[in-house]
């Protein structure tokens, strides 16, 4: 039987570096994108049935569709990898990252400021609370949030990086969802954020 070509040492994932608009999973080599599509589905079913599993999945399953840099799946993006039982994962989570636990400190950067600050999101009960604190910490005004206009009408707009690594406008999602997915905050000049607000 003819032996097929093995993957060499260097360029391994040429197909995976293609930007594709097709459905993920249509080419078996795109292990990562097919895995991430399924990740999303799997999370939604499992989140409803098993609390503990959705906890361990929520960090791994926010996969990216068609990740353009084409790396093989890192361990943070694949369901069930590394192969550790939920029981063992869960016995460490509360201690290490204190997800939904006490004291959720995130970095806050202000465009143009020489150094960053840190705030504990757990201390605040709602968006107005947080925004007021940020205004006082940085001596600036943020203004009113509106779903349509974002923070139009003020000099600054608060944004945050979520678990997927995307930059989002603060205020779009319910507060609880925000604090569990916010990794860091960035206060942008409103002129830059205008693009976001118009979407």
């Amino acid at each position, binding site marked *: 039987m003819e032996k097929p070509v093995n993957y060499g040492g260097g360029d391994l994932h040429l197909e995976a570096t293609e930007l594709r608009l097709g459905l993920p999973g249509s080419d078996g080599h795109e292990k990562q994108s097919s895995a991430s599509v399924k990740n999303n589905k799997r999370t939604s079913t499992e989140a409803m049935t098993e609390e503990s599993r959705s906890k361990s999945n929520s960090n791994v399953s926010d996969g990216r569709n068609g990740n353009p840099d084409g790396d093989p*799946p890192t361990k943070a993006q694949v369901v*069930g990898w590394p192969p550790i039982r939920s029981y063992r994962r869960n016995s460490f989570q509360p201690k290490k990252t204190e997800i939904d636990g006490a004291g959720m400190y995130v970095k806050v950067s202000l465009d143009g400021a020489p150094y960053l600050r840190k705030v504990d999101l757990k201390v605040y009960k709602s968006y107005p609370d947080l925004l007021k604190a940020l205004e006082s910490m940085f001596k600036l005004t943020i203004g009113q949030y509106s779903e349509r206009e974002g923070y139009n009408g003020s000099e600054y707009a608060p944004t945050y990086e979520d678990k997927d690594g995307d930059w989002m406008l603060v205020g779009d999602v319910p507060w609880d969802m925000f604090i569990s997915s916010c990794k860091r905050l960035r206060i942008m000049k409103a002129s830059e954020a205008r693009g976001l607000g118009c979407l």
Partner: protein
Amino acid sequence: MDPKGKGSPDASGLARVGSTFPDEVMQIVLALLNSHRDRSSVSLVCKNWYDAERFSRTHVFIGNCYSVSPEIVTRRFPNIRKVTLKGKPRFADFNLVPPNWGADIRSWLLVFAARNLCLEELRLKRMTVSDESLKFLSLSFPNFKALSLLHCDGFSTDGLAAIATHCMNLAELDIQENDINDKSGSWLSCFPENFSSLEVLNFANLRNEVNFEALDRLVSRCKSLKVLKVNKNISAEQLKRLLVHAPQLTELGTGTFLQDLTSCQYSELESAFNKCKNLKTLSGLSEVTALHLTPLYPACTNLIFLNLSYSALKDVQLAKLLVRCPCLRRLWVLETVGDKGLEAVGSNCPMLEDLRVFPADTFEDIAHGVTESGFVSVSYGCPRLRYVLYFCQQMTNAAVATIVHNCPNFTHFRLCIMNPCQPDYQTNEPMDKAFCAVVKTCAKLQRLAVSGLLTDVTFESIGRYAKSLKTLSVAFAGSSDWGMQCVLGGCPKLRKLEIRDCPFGNAALLSGFKKYDSLRSLWMSDCKVTMNGCRLLAKERPWLNVEVMKEEGSNESRANKVYVYRSVAGPRRDAPPFVLTL
């Protein structure tokens, strides 16, 4: 006759006299045979021996609960008292099997009760067990003695309360790493005040606090208690009180070992451990610091198994502890001990046979995991190593070659390089050479788990050299169908093959259709197998169960999760809608 069944009868010689051998004598002789394999051999000799064997069988082990039905089992073995059952495919542990897949114990219990089986022991792994089933169990079998639930789901502490309340002769309650609905700790108080037959109690899995006074009284009156594994809520002070009542323990699982003890309490704890001269196994020890391990030292002299896989120990702490454990044969640790900690293992544990290094936090790339050098250090100091499970951030082919050169007696080699498809970090080559070295050097290898960047070359070697291999786990590996074909065409002793995220498709799947008769099961998920391929296999081999798990929204022709297994019970009758049997 050797009770391990080594003295199994010489079939050809005795078959001639088989028909004149009185049945009663046969049964007495067979009663001494414990090995399943030997019993299977005996049953194949002739009809008389088949009958004698089946009536004398007391323990049945069923590796796949769907390979046979409870009716068939109880019809053939009417006198069994001990049952061991395994349910879901192993990858269910990693959330690859949707919930409500099956493997429910209920139908088995109903049949056992209907046939008036004198059930005494039930050991379940990856089965679904409801509270109703536990209650039914506790009420239907008055001689019930031992319940062991490992990686099971579907029950709550209410079910445990039923067991505690009704099983008058219970000797063993072993609840390990299950997906349990932990409602409260009150189940423990359900043991009657005059109940004293417990020999094994393991509730380390449970999170709710039990009533300590009830536990203390229970431990005091169960004079035969050998195994006690408590949960995190038990403090060091409470543990001391328990130990004072049970110095005869051979296995201990501590609670939280974090303690601020007065010097008086400290020396009392140390003295309690000092009295535990029979301790062979120690586990638990969550939230420890170096200071708090010292009371343990007196108990370490005879330790054979030390399970520190829930303790985030550092290298220095581990080294200090290991010096006290000269007899250690099995050690499970977290990667927090680092390569330096593993050097200490190599230096202090010459008798070591089983080493497992688990990751501490799977979501961050931590700088202080273990690397190839830790493993190599252990291999130099522990030539008797035969079982290893090693999670690491990086590995090299050269290191693995050295390791198996130092330790050629591996029976279980499970290496997990945590980033999928990661090459040898020094040479940037695939990790093929590493696993080729493993299968070529370790003639006794029974279980292998591969990882890292691997081409078909690895699988060619596995197929060719792994003559004793029974279980193979593959993830994110291989280049083409040829890889899997090599494995299916070789590996004469293969029993379980589990594959995920590999480029193996229908050609590979179908190349093994004769092989599947001798496999307990095959799992393939996120490979390139299609529904048509599975249908072809099902058609070719109608006595195999070819099951496909469908997911919503996935490509209709893709068979994303395939589970193939041999069965004498036919297709499942309890399959949920997402499981299609072809």
